[in-house]
């Protein structure tokens, strides 16, 4: 009832209100976990984008007067063993975390989705070759790919994005393929073929738009895992190298100080936890809304 009141009246808006994408957003706003998730993600994105203006001090500036300080008026979230401000490092670390999650998932989608679509549409030999390649890629965990790549190319933002992105490719390909298996048999695809539409156009206009929902779900969940993987890589020291602050290498540097200044570990740890949780909440909520097999079970 409340949703119709929330929409502005008037021709164009009313028509737009019928669009399926808008219905998804409306449903999302009714799930508390999803709202929490969206708020956290939006806050993180704002912090990352506005970093140059909101960072209190240079994250690499050392304040030797306040080493390992707790919460204080100078350092709101404390400082580390070299006197660097934790809040500043956390905000800059958020930039890295988001760049990695968006970059890696974007890479996975950009490579995986076209492969999956080609695979499912052209069937047969093409399908076999692509999907066996994807199977081969699944065998390697993203952590292993990352360690290998870092060893070969050195730990940098690009390496981390490439490693996590490659690990995402087969999952994206599989998800869109599983949708395509059903969609390609539907009559509207046959109607498009009978109407003389080209293969690529049918894929782009019919199969992709109707199969994209689970890819959105998978992408949201994968962003959470990407944040986690980036932190793990940073922690074991093969990720993005210091002095660039990342939540992973902040944890790594804080770990030896755990008994002297636990706050130093708690802050990045909590940041990772909350952001991953937010992505998972939104992803789960999207799945509840978009996956017809679960429809009605949750709400």
């Amino acid at each position, binding site marked *: 009832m409340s949703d119709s009141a929330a929409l502005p009246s008037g021709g164009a808006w009313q*028509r737009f209100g*019928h*669009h*399926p994408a808008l219905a998804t957003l409306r449903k999302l706003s009714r799930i508390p976990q999803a709202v929490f998730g969206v708020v956290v993600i939006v806050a993180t994105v704002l912090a990352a984008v506005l970093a140059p203006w909101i960072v209190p001090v240079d994250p690499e500036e050392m304040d030797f007067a306040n080493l390992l300080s707790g919460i204080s008026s100078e350092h709101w979230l404390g400082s580390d063993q070299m006197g660097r401000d934790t809040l500043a490092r956390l905000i800059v670390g958020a930039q890295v975390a988001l760049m990695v999650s968006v970059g890696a998932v974007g890479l996975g989608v950009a490579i995986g989705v076209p492969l999956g679509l080609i695979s499912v549409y052209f069937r047969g030999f093409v399908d076999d070759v692509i999907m066996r390649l994807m199977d081969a890629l699944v065998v390697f965990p993203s952590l292993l790919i990352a360690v290998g790549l870092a060893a070969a190319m050195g730990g940098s933002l690009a390496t981390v994005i490439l490693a996590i992105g490659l690990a995402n490719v087969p999952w994206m390909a599989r998800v869109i393929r599983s949708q395509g298996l059903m969609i390609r048999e*539907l*009559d*509207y695809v*046959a*109607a*498009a*073929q*009978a*109407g*003389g*539409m*080209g*293969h690529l*156009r049918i894929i782009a*206009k*019919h199969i992709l*738009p*109707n199969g994209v929902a689970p890819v959105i779900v998978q992408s949201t969940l994968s962003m959470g895992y990407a944040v986690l993987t980036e932190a793990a890589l940073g922690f074991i020291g093969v990720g993005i190298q210091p002095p660039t602050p990342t939540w992973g290498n902040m944890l790594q540097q804080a770990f030896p100080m755990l008994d002297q200044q636990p706050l130093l570990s708690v802050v990045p740890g909590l940041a990772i936890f909350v952001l991953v949780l937010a992505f998972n909440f939104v992803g789960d909520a999207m799945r509840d809304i978009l996956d017809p097999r679960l429809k009605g079970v949750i709400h």
Partner: protein
Amino acid sequence: MLEVMDLEKHFPVRKGLFGRVTGHVHAVDGVSFTIDAGETLGLVGESGCGKTTVGRTVLRLLAPTAGSIRVDGDDITRLGNRELRPYRRRMQIIFQDPFSSLDPRMSAADIVGELLGVHGVAKGTERRERVAALFERVGLRADQLDNYPHEFSGGQRQRLSIARALSLNPELIVCDEPVSALDVSIQAQVINLLMDLQAEFGLSYLFIAHDLAVVEHLSDRVAVMYLGRIVEFADRQTLFENPQHPYTESLLAAVPVPDPSRARRKRHLEGDVPSPVNRPSGCHFHTRCPYATAQCRAEEPRLKAIAEGHEVACHLR
């Protein structure tokens, strides 16, 4: 307009780890017919007899295994996707399922106008005007142009399908059971629409159905299919008044007559259609035929003319 010769479509049956082909489904097994301009050919038969496969193969939505398809004398059996395009414009299809035949993410105007864009017929405002005209022609309102498929009823969706099929001014429309998913009252409206359109545009129809009453109402000629083959072929009146094949006879006997005082001899068919993978020897129908003889079990009957324009595949005729 359309000439189909000895059309065959087999689907391989694959088994095991390496997808070894262990057999074939003979969905269509040597079907020949012609459709003249402005004519309706009814194609009837039980579920699984290959009627839909015939319709889809004729449109080259499925690649034929053997045989030939000619449009005004041009062989389109082996044409590639690009060469096929000009012929695609001339032959369209309407489907049985009013739900899966429309893309749920496109507006009605986009669905109906999509093919105009594909063939570069009309763009922008001109396209919208043509779509609006098509809407009006099939009995939809212009204020429904921007609605999505889920906002239409089953009958309206079928009208959308018809409008899409009409958009390119085709000469032939394959109607694959276009009314069997609809309420009886709506069926009549859609059938009347199809007949009006035929009269107006001189369309040819390949009308696939299992409802004999509908076929009788619409068709000029009727082909009866059983297990991938045409077993009887005649003009409408002959077929319904003087069926010659035992299968046609039993199909007609199964049509309910809305007159309780008219007692009919009932002869229902026993059993199911045999498997199109392991087909019966000789005449495919001998396993269920009340008149089957030793010859029927051993020898395959060919379609032969028993009168002008009346062909039957049965040893007993």
